[in-house]
């Protein structure tokens, strides 16, 4: 069981502020995860990430899911409660990135891909996943 702490309120507040979304609107239907591009590669489904944000559970900041998200916006367009879930995932990323915690240091990009991918992949990937 997860118990709220002072940090919980802070986390909820920051995600609300950065994403502009109210996590408490979520009714835990799971539509977001059912549609999610990256669901099979995530440790927590988007529904579970939103639940952690509702509770102020800091595991939301440490989970893998936020870095596996491809910002496809399928969750966003299909949430029956009108929550822009992708913005919540991004808020969790940027809270990390602004503390220097990144998922994609340039050195980790496979060398065989670096010279081959279109420029937009590099600009986009580094913007979403690097500090």
């Amino acid at each position, binding site marked *: 069981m997860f118990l709220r702490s002072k940090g919980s309120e802070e986390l909820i507040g920051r995600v609300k*502020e*950065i*994403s*502009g979304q109210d996590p408490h609107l979520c009714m835990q239907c799971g539509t977001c995860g059912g549609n999610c*591009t*990256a669901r*099979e*590669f995530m440790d927590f489904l988007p529904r579970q990430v939103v639940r952690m944000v509702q509770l102020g559970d800091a595991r939301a900041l440490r989970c893998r899911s936020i*870095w*596996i998200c*491809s*910002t*496809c*916006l*399928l969750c*966003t*367009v299909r949430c029956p409660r009108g929550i*822009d879930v*992708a*913005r919540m*995932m*991004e*808020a969790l990323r*940027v809270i990390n990135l602004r503390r220097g915690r990144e*998922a*994609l240091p340039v050195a*980790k*990009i*496979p060398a065989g*891909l670096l010279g*081959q*991918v*279109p*420029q*937009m*992949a*590099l*600009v*986009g*990937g580094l*913007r*979403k*996943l690097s500090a």
Partner: protein
Amino acid sequence: MEMPYFPGCTLYRKAENLDASTRSSLAALGVKLIELPRWTCCGAVVPLARDNYMGMVAAARILADAAKMGKTLATVCSFCYNVLKQVNYVMQRDPEARQKLNNYLEEGYRGEVRVIHALEICRQNPSLRAAKDRGSGYLRGLKVACYYGCTLLRPAAVALDDAENPAVMEEMVAVLGAEAVAYPLRTACCGSYQVLHEGALVAQKVREIIASASAAGAEVIITSCPLCQFNLDWWQERFSREDGGFRPVPVLYFTQLLGMALGVPPGDLGLERHLVDPRPLLSGAPL
């Protein structure tokens, strides 16, 4: 008709053939694209954090410059289209963001430019049907899977067409005399920039999308996104090397198909740049 045009950085490097085929096929429809005199990368992805104004500066700059040239700005890369359209939407609707960005840029831009995608130019072009009749007609019956991906359609506020049931590419394919196949994954995500970070995710998405299109009988896939094109092309080439039984489906830009139908010289279309070579399939064509 002349129209201001933003190519975007990928179209100057890896997707030169998207740029060339867009310019030449639209020229065949009587639309001359005039490249903006100065431009930068649009930023590729739009910031989803509400307090990230810096992530919108480049696109706001491009839009403010375009406003000095005319009322519309044409683009074709799906990412550029999405970023320009979303930032334009913010400039129209969000007074705080508008003021911050304008102060920074020393501009007074209010979102008055209309961002238009090459597919929309085709949709509203009266000469598409007539121009196609002048062409060779060798696309007749070709089975085409239109792949939209994410950024032409989401979020719904900037969608080029119905976000869940688009038709603009299928309509174009039908006018050109080819056959658009119906398959479920045409609006799915290919995994996008995760190719740099979680390749296995992209590999799986590509397998699913190709299987879906193949099951519907697709002989060729068309897209307007250089990253979708790369992901689908690069992984299929890999699958073919690893598994002799894998049947790859060539992935073209819609502008290449359009150009072929309109009789644009093949040399202007850059078909040879794709990894899964589309030329054998299109060998009935004068390539």
